[in-house]
């Protein structure tokens, strides 16, 4: 099955080579959804509507890339939705309409993101709390802390300057109209993540997710690498918060449920839960696909209340599909951990 028949036509071979990362599958799905949207609403592909779509999708792409870093290292980050909400509320409260506060507050937000990521990472790696618990706890802690701090509803307001990255863009671009900053930021971060994954750190991350014991034996500092993944995810969530806050301003509900949308996007991109496989581009395409699907539902006048159900179906279907593809793995390669008892050695990554 792994042998490629020689007489296969060139495009198909290209497709199948792309397909190994799951990128082709999600790309195909994305194109299909776009085609259906186009049949419903031909004007969707004129510049401005497309840019409006991209602008809306940009924060989710960034969240998905951040989530990818954590998932590929074999963990989860459920705290990003709450973190987005917390960051927007913090921004509104600290800026309170003062233009001069914009930059200092953005720095505070990044520092806060760094702190949250660090705490998530250290609790998971040092205290050995499973990340699904750590970040679930962090999600509730942030949610509750923000409620407590604000008395249940956000106060203050964002400055005009703060809203530029999420709302503004380069005006007067031919065909497109406005080229949103949000799209450029998402693109830059995605490209940055692609290069990160090709760096030694990225390879360590991937190796950790695939088999942390083997990675540890081969000299990867597993705890450090995983902690960095959480920090990366939290920083990405902070950038996403800046874009979301900029896009639509402050509401009490901002960020709610975004962690699951981000995980849906990553899974749809064929990134295997449990870590070790998948590409950044596929995760970003997954995010675009989820957004496109929601747009399509809107075009079809399906009630938005059905969206969570669809997300659920997508997660299950995508994981089931990935599990089937998992059969293609060369035999004899352990999925994550060998059967014999390796736990003791985790603490000594260098022999």
């Amino acid at each position, binding site marked *: *099955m792994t042998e490629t028949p020689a007489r296969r036509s060139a495009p198909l071979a290209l497709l*199948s080579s792309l*397909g190994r990362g799951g990128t082709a*599958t999600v790309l*195909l*799905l994305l194109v*299909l*959804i776009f*085609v*259906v949207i186009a*049949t*419903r*609403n031909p*004007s*969707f592909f004129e510049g*401005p*509507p497309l840019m*409006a779509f991209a602008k*809306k999708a940009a924060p989710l792409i960034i969240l998905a890339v951040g989530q990818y870093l954590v998932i590929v290292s074999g963990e989860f980050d459920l705290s990003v939705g709450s973190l987005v909400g917390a960051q927007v509320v913090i921004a509104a409260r600290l800026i309170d309409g003062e233009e001069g506060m914009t930059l200092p507050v953005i720095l505070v937000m990044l520092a806060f993101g760094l702190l949250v990521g660090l705490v998530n990472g250290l609790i998971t790696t040092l205290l050995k709390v499973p990340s699904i618990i750590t970040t679930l706890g962090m999600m509730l802690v942030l949610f509750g802390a923000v409620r407590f701090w*604000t*008395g*249940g*509803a*956000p*106060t*203050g*307001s964002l400055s005009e300057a703060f809203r530029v990255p999420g*709302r503004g863009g380069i005006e007067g671009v031919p065909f497109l109209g406005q080229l949103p900053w949000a799209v450029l930021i998402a693109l830059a971060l995605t490209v940055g993540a692609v290069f990160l994954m090709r760096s030694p750190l990225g390879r360590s991350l991937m190796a950790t997710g695939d088999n942390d014991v083997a990675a540890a034996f081969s000299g990867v500092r597993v705890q450090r690498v995983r902690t960095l993944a959480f920090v990366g995810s939290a920083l990405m969530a902070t950038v996403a918060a800046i874009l*979301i806050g900029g*896009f*639509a*301003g*402050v*509401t*009490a*509900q*901002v960020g*709610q449920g975004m962690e699951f949308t981000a995980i849906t996007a990553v899974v749809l991109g064929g990134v295997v839960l449990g870590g070790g496989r998948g590409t950044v581009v596929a995760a970003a395409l997954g995010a675009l696909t989820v957004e496109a699907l929601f*747009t*399509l539902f*809107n*075009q*079809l*006048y*399906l*009630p*938005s*209340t059905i969206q969570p159900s669809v997300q659920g179906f997508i997660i299950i279907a995508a994981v089931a*599909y990935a599990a*089937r*593809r998992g*059969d*293609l793995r060369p035999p004899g390669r352990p999925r994550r951990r060998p059967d014999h008892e390796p736990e003791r050695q985790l603490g000594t990554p260098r022999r």
Partner: protein
Amino acid sequence: MRVSRMLLAGTAGLTLMLSACTTDAPDDAAGGGGGAEMTPDAEWFDQEEFDAQLAQREIEPEGPADEPWLQAIEPEWTDTSEFVHDSPEDATLCFSNASVSNPWRVTGFITMEQQVEALQEEGRIGEFRVSDAADDDNQQISDIQAFVDSGDCDAILISPSTTATLTPAVETACESGVPVVVFDRGVNSDCMVTFIHPIGGYAYGADAAEFLVDNLEPGSTVLALRILPGVDVLEHRWAAAQQIFGGSELDVLGYEFTEGDGAKIKDLVSQHLQRGEVDGIWMDAGDGAVAALEAFEDAGRPYPVISGEDELSFMRKWDEEGLTAVAPVYSNFQWRTPVLAASMILAGEEVPAEWILPQEPIGQGELQEFLDRNSDMPSLHYAKFGGEDLPGFPEAWTDR
């Protein structure tokens, strides 16, 4: 394996195409496109109640005009002498709150706490205990039970989370013999001493819809933004709007559920703008009205005629941009009334059995007055909070 992947993708594609075709119909459906049925759902529409609420808007309420939280529309006074408390300054009030999960409830709860402080200073009530159920019915049922079991409560105030589920809990509270006051959302029982609420959802939805009908040309398009389905106070607003739009010549494009999330609102409105004109926006609550307006700004379209709410971010935008707008009001000052009612009951004074508070929308004429009165308030504050004469004004509301 390859074949099956292609098959899967093909099937998925086909399904999408088919669903695209089969749902073509709503575009051309009569009485408004987008699947927006302009006949209210029977589950949420009661013609008699609808007519009654619309009529109540015109009735002059009894009571002091400068204290609307003490006014009542057509009250039927009920005797409370059996609940007289010998030393009201020692009486314990217990309040089971559904939640403070949105800015409207936060604003109201602050007002309530300040009202409590005022009454405590006057020695009309004593301790004030609060439990917050965080929108969880089961939690609220056990909160109420805990109040009853403690035996410390001299009056129980309840703001129910949902109607049907909380009914037995409210009845349990009534059976404990202490006076019970229910406000905001109701329950299916009349065991409480008084049920306090503004006129209601039908009047709110009708105020909003009538404004659009009056201010838009026949044939104009209207988009409805709703927060959630299935919540009676919100469903009644939409049912009333359906009733009024159905009898008008406006073209209702459809309705969208937004969860009050600004990003979602902006996205949904942008998408509708891509597909065509939107001349009017009807909202079942004002959360995120500004985001809806920004979608028009970003698309370079003229502002719509819009019904929001008396939330300040919307009212300030309305003023700055000179919008054609109205702010229907779900009287936030109602949060004062339950505590006042409890103090009246403990003093043995008569209270209305159903205490219907006035509920007047803010129009262009009163816009400036309410903006001036609330000039120091944060943007997610409600203009008709009615706490200007309470202790702690304005810090309690500005520093929340």
